[in-house]
């Protein structure tokens, strides 16, 4: 296997230009939403709203204002599939459409997926959705086709501020640690890395530098694998089956004992 490749997204230098969203749509030939007619979210300057089957990068706008709007804070984060080392979507996919590539990324094969949507419910980050054009579940592929010919993903190529960094995960982690150290020295002591170590789902190959709690960025504080309750659920169901069987014996057998 080639080295594990991934993204390090430094949210502190994101300017919210959405060049990554556009580059992603261009390269991956993703259709416009709503037939191209623009729709406004109405409560945010961000009109993409969320990652889905036709938005594989999404610049999240965290807009925090006082009621009179005299004080405010902007946080910007280009969100994307986390390419988890232990991936919930890959775990549950019943068709084998979701695979791990030689770059340690997670890719959905659109010609295999049958649109059952188990992966949508399984993803701890709400990344996956159906692309109406294909009727299959889709998400960021970390530009698998570009990686295979030695190119970097379209979003990282387009990012004008190097908020999106692409490379071997090991190198990115070093770069990110250095960046956190620098920010701390400059006084931004809230800066920390989300998903850069092995604790979160075995590590997120696409990890982030944040300056507030994960939930502020609409990231789960403690993402887990979908199978975490499989064993307990299965045993509880077996217990239920035994109880149903016993109740059946009690109810129906009595008459069998008549002469």
């Amino acid at each position: 296997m080639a080295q594990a490749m991934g993204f390090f997204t430094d949210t502190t230098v994101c300017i919210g230009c959405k060049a990554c969203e556009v580059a992603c749509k261009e390269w991956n030939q993703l259709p416009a939403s709503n037939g191209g007619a623009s729709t406004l979210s109405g409560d945010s300057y961000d009109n993409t709203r969320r990652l889905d089957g036709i938005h594989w990068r999404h610049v999240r706008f965290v807009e925090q204002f006082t009621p009179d709007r005299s004080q405010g804070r902007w946080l910007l984060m280009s969100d994307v599939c986390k390419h988890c080392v232990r991936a919930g979507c890959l775990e549950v996919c019943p068709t084998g459409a979701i695979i791990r590539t030689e770059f340690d990324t997670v890719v959905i094969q659109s010609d295999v997926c049958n649109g059952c949507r188990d992966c949508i419910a399984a993803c701890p980050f709400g990344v996956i959705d159906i692309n109406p054009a294909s009727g299959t579940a889709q998400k960021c592929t970390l530009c698998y086709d570009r990686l295979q010919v030695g190119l970097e993903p379209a979003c990282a190529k387009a990012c004008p501020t190097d908020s999106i960094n692409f490379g071997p995960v090991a190198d990115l982690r070093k770069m990110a640690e250095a960046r956190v150290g620098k920010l701390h020295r400059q006084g931004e002591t809230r800066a920390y890395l989300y998903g850069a170590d092995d604790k979160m789902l075995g590590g997120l190959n696409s990890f982030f530098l944040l300056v507030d709690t994960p939930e502020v960025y609409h990231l789960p504080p403690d993402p887990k694998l979908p199978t975490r309750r499989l064993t307990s659920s299965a045993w509880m169901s077996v217990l239920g089956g035994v109880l149903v069987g016993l109740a059946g014996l009690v109810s129906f057998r009595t008459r069998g004992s008549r002469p």
Partner: protein
Amino acid sequence: MNPPPSTLFTAPPEWQWLIVGYFFLGGIAGGAYFLAVLIDLVGDPLERPLARLGYLIAFPTVAVCGLLLTVDLRRPERFWHMLLQSETLRPMLKPWSPMSLGSWVLLLFGGFALVSFLAALADDGRGRWPRLAALRPPGALGTLVAVLGGLLALFVAGYTGVLLTVTNRPIWADTSLLGVVFLISGASTAAALLALLGRRRAGASVTGLHALERFDSLMLVLELIALVALVISLGGMARVWLGAWGALLVLGVIGLGIVLPLALYRRSLRLGDASGAVAATLVLIGGFLLRVVIILSSEGV
């Protein structure tokens, strides 16, 4: 301040009415087959018509289940990708994924349900192949079919709850009790349907109907206990049910679908000759509403 539950940061899979319908009918198909097996194996031979009714319900119901699931796919023509790898045609099975294992068990159970359906017809002398009757107890071969099919039936009735739990969605992934609740409810709704149809078609004797009511009463008590445990196990996430969903759960599922039929079964409430039929109908409605609440309340978060 405690961080919010991580299941709130996920996206809904848009499993809606087709899946509600499948979960309801899957419970009935599995439950009806299991009850038929039970009656065939340990019940009075006089009740064989009731068991026959169970087999006759199970196969058509599970066939409809397969249809609902296929139609719900966004690419229905690829339904077989659940069973075979589309490139190599090798078997596709992930035992740790309830949807993957469930697809195989549903197929197998469908096969057993078909065999028992034909055997039940043959047993009555109405089928075209009378020798198929050997595939139904009391013979050795029939007993084998019944035992294997009965175990698969229980799986079909309960795995749907485990499938919901093996996700990251609110409510579903926040408890380990959905499988057991669905399993009990499947057995309960199947008993109610058997009692209802058995009464109409005169397939069941009075003692058979009483046994069904006794069984369903036990199931309703168990279901109530399991539901209370479910709400407790959800902890703070149960807050999602404060409002219309909770009202539907308490009034519809528990009041209308459990407490009222229990009172009718126990004859502490009397509606004359119709008591049993009304109780069974209410159980079926309650079982359906249970799936509606569990599935759609999480979809809405």
